[in-house]
């Protein structure tokens, strides 16, 4: 497994080179990419910020859960921070496993859990010069 929060640009290759095995017949990759519009507004970029230490911990937990689901330890996830332009990847996920169903499932699991509980925030920069924090998800907090 490999997980990281990084301010460096990320590509599919960033995670692809960390998965794969001679016994794996499937490799699934997901990229989250900054798009040029949101809710009717023209977007020129997105600034991502993180509670870095906690985000590293939560991302490792999510990857471990995905590995458990997939029955494969070949799970790699990298989330970007900093100023991203349209077209740049904010998150890259790769999972490899012997068969495709597990790889697809684990890849989907990782991105959905990131959306629910990774302590990361994004502020959209608009073409008109305005900016706004995006509404997010309220993480579930387990009560002991």
């Amino acid at each position, binding site marked *: 497994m490999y997980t990281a929060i990084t301010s460096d640009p990320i590509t599919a290759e960033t995670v692809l080179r960390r998965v794969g095995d001679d016994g794996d017949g499937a490799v699934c990759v997901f990229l*989250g990419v900054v798009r040029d519009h949101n809710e009717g507004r023209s977007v020129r970029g997105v600034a991502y910020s993180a509670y870095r230490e906690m985000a590293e911990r939560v991302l490792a937990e999510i990857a471990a859960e995905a590995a458990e689901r997939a029955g494969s330890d070949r799970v790699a996830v990298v989330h970007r921070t900093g100023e991203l332009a349209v077209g740049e990847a904010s998150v890259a996920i790769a999972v490899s496993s012997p068969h495709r169903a597990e790889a697809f499932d684990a890849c989907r699991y990782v991105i959905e859990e*990131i959306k629910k*509980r990774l302590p990361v925030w994004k502020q959209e920069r608009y073409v008109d010069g305005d900016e706004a*924090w*995006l509404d997010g998800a309220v993480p579930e907090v387990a009560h002991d």
Partner: protein
Amino acid sequence: MRVRLLLFARYRELAGTDEVELELPSRATAADAVDALRALSRDCARIPSQPVIAVNQRYAPPDTPLAPGDELALLPPVAGG
């Protein structure tokens, strides 16, 4: 006891600071720390009264008891991915 409280994203902007040190009574809870923060200034009072809280980098309910040196964080709704 003294604890550190970290603020992120929108809450950081509202409060005008990214970190405060709080002096709390012994037996204080995470919710008490939020109350203490909101009492610091008019800007800090703009933070919601029941935000999502992390204690030592784990999501924690408001009644979580605190210990000296704990690192608390108030987390706006998350928007990764």
